[in-house]
């Protein structure tokens, strides 16, 4: 699910950038640092604006200026049971991998409807029910999240296409 979230981040600026357009530089650096980052539970999708840039504080020792920036960002937090649209990345006999934006999902054979089976003779190999459903790389697919796991800067998820309205999206 997407949220508009108020966040805070500390930006440091090299002394050579000290000058009139410092605030712009701080914002630019913030965007560069934080956009697209996985923050544990959620991804920062886009930074809308900054609402509070603190006064710079010179760090003793190296002369960098430190700004505490309050900003508003669109974040995406995947939830268990959430339905997401993704693109299939690769297919193997155990299941297929797909990508929902920054999140990598795996859908195993046990998470697919009964009639879908692995066809290794096709090139490239695919999952198919011999009818309308063909899952191969670059197929668009709707998946329900089963569970997620996060580590620093990374998130993985297990999904299923077993359910109503899940599976291949008709282009």
């Amino acid at each position, binding site marked *: 699910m997407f949220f508009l979230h108020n966040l805070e981040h500390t930006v440091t600026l090299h002394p050579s950038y000290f000058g009139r357009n410092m605030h712009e530089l701080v914002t630019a650096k913030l965007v560069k640092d934080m956009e697209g980052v996985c923050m544990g539970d959620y991804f920062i999708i886009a930074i809308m604006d900054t609402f509070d840039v603190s006064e710079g504080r010179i760090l003793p020792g190296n002369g960098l200026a430190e700004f505490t920036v309050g900003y508003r960002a669109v974040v995406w937090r995947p939830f268990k049971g959430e339905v997401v649209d993704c693109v299939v990345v*690769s*297919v*193997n*006999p*155990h*299941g297929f*991998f797909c990508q929902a934006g920054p999140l990598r999902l*795996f*859908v*195993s054979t*046990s*998470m697919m409807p009964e009639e879908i089976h692995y066809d*290794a*003779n096709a*090139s*490239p*190999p695919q999952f198919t029910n011999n009818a309308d459903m063909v899952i191969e*790389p670059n197929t668009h697919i709707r998946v329900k999240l*089963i*569970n*997620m*796991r996060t580590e620093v800067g990374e998130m*993985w*998820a*297990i999904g299923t296409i077993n359910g109503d309205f899940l599976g291949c999206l008709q282009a």
Partner: protein
Amino acid sequence: MNRTVNFGSRLRYPITIVKILKSPGTPIKKQEVLLTYSFEWTRTVGDHINDKTWEETTTTVVNWESPIDGDLKKWFIKEGDVIKGDCPCMTVKEECPHDVQFSGLCARCGKDMTEVNWAADTRDADRAPISMVHDQTSLTVSKTQAVRTEETLQRRLLQSRKLSLVVDLDQTIIHACIDPTVGEWQRDPTNPNYESVKNVKTFQLEDGPRGVARGCWYYIKMRPGLEEFLQRISTMYELHVYTMGTRAYAQNVARIVDPNRKLFGNRVISRDENGNMYAKSLQRLFPVSTDMVLIIDDRADVWPNNRTNLIKVSPYEFFKGIGDINSSFLPKRQDLLTDAPGPAAANGKSAKEAKEAIPESPAVTQLQLEEQERTLEKQIKERPLQILQEKLDKEEEEAEKASTVSEDGEDTPSSQPHHRHQVLSDDDSELEFLEQHLTQIHKAYYEEYDRRRSRKLELDIDAKPDVGDVMDDVKSKALEGCRIVLSGIIPMGIDVLSSEIGLQLKSFGAQIRTSVSRDVTHLVVSTLRPRTSKVRQAAEIPSIKIVSQEWLSECFCKWKKADEKPYLFDVHPDDRPGGKDSAGTVAATGDTETEMDEGEETDARLTNGKPRRKIRLQNPRLRIVNPQGVSHKLEEDDEDSDDEDDGEIDDDLDDEFSPYEPEDGELSPTERLKGFDWGDVDDELEAFMEESTDEDDEAKTDDDSRRTAGKKRKYATDDEGETGSESDRVDEEGNVLSSKRVRRARQPLGGSSLKNQYAPEGNDDNSSLPTPQVTGEEDGYEDMDEAELEADFMAEFEAAEVEEDEEDQPKVQDPQPTTDLGATTVAATQSAGQQESSLAATAAAGKGSENVSGGEG
């Protein structure tokens, strides 16, 4: 999915079951209390300060919690049981076997597998340890799942009558380089190489190397006939790519080789997913059974565990001198059969910079990544191809200048492109043969399969033969009956039988011999070192075909005995047998006198067929057959190998050797023997033979060939120990073994070292051919504990009543630098024991008299 659960090893056995809290049929959760048990233990109680303590036995009742989730099916225990050790206690039906996991999540139920639970002995993440997917390492499966998947695969292959074929990229089906010269040539139709590089494909890598090589173009040349080869092969084989390049590289190459992704599909594995920087393993892709998998690769050493499935192809080198751009991680290759100056040069910089395999660690990996970057940078900066072309142009120019004087001003490369020769040529036919072999194996495999399965038309997975065995059958017929000796091909110190070429020869059904004998059929000679003793020996036996190593590579390539004619080796005229005496040397005769003659003849053969003595009188150094050129090389080779010697003189001599050549100004050792009374020595020897008849550990089974070779060896080398040779001759018929003993006893004097063959004076023209025994003598003396040895020998000499003035002689003769080989020889002497010593004495006695006579002469 029923699972049997144990109590676990951490309990304080013996335990008594007090109460079972859950009955079969109820669902249980992890860490839920299932039963209570009690155990007895002792503790020390009382007043510790005043030291009034006593032991007290306590019974404690503890809860036992379930390590897994599921439905409790059955208890194996009942209340009141006493359990002595870890044993199964219940069966639980699990909802999910957690047999497919993705990054710590169970792909079946979505549970987090990384959670650590104190109730369970093992982590759930360990239940799926096998990674078998090509493009992922984060997806792991359990053993049962792996078996299931692989069986499905094999059924499918059997159904479509196919096999799996794992294909290497670099130097097997393509050759890659990043030398920008190729791009320039491609854009310049006037360039002589234009035709060759026209079809070279290019790509750039986004995540390629950093630094100078960043954003460089990769130039990919496909092996001639590759497209058709793959098309045809893919009807019989399911193709996989397995490369040591990065994933991006592999995919780009796969796109070039297979634009429609029909051949390889997504079956591409690179070093990113391999999990090992130094070796490839079929088990990474086929963890259960490799019965239906073949490999084609230009390197056998990267497949340490799958040699039976490997078809080694000759490396494809289109861009000369570049080598394999992805080989920085691999150990240096040693198996080249080319004529290039050596493996290092043939493989270019990458080989030179390649590291020996060392245990993997992040730091080392980082180092090697940098190493590879440097290699790539170097290629871009130095442009080896351009240099090659320029060199070739220059040669052309010079040749032209020499022939046509008038065109002097015009021979700039651009004005006369048609005169220029090209560096790159596209003349490789390996794939043709490879296709034949693959077809052959495929056919043989399915013939065998059809034969094995009982009911026709029905799929029978148990009837599938092992493709490795099938290939062995096909291959082993190729060189059947060939008994091959290699000369100058395997670096010394490497066991011939376990070397790459040796293993290959064996797989083709050939027998490898270490020395030349009558029943040998082929002698394979390196064209770089054409003058070895083996060549000389083999030249005497007309049945031996002396061929260059190209013959071998053709045999390996074609999988059949190639016609020797084009490869017959032109033996150096000096090495050819000298007419009449060629046959006599092989036959062993008992008569001392004949033997003596024979020895002389052997020596004479080495001196260009002229009588030896005469030459000796005039100039002992005439024995150098070719002091500057080839023999020098030989010498270096011998030196290298010397480090491997362990003092065992016989082993040492089985390899190459060369005749002794005295130092500048030094008299030939045999010179002193001229006035020598051989009768005396014979008498002495006979006496000695009588007193020592029992055999020691030297009593090995010695075949005829060995004996002959050994004898020849001696004749060629044992100048210093003429007496020793004499003894050999005497008992050639009666007792070879004791003669060996004599030799071995002499070992401390004439050790096995070849090291100091370089004259310390540094005379270039004095490039002596190394002689193991003679030089070893000097060597040994310098190195070993002289006093000790002297004492040893003094005792023996006194017993033998011979003056021991020769002790000093070697030192005077040759103040050589020391080597570490003396130590081993000393050890050998000491362990040889009393009997050996007495033998040594006899040998030394011979020497002593030799010296005397030398003095007289």
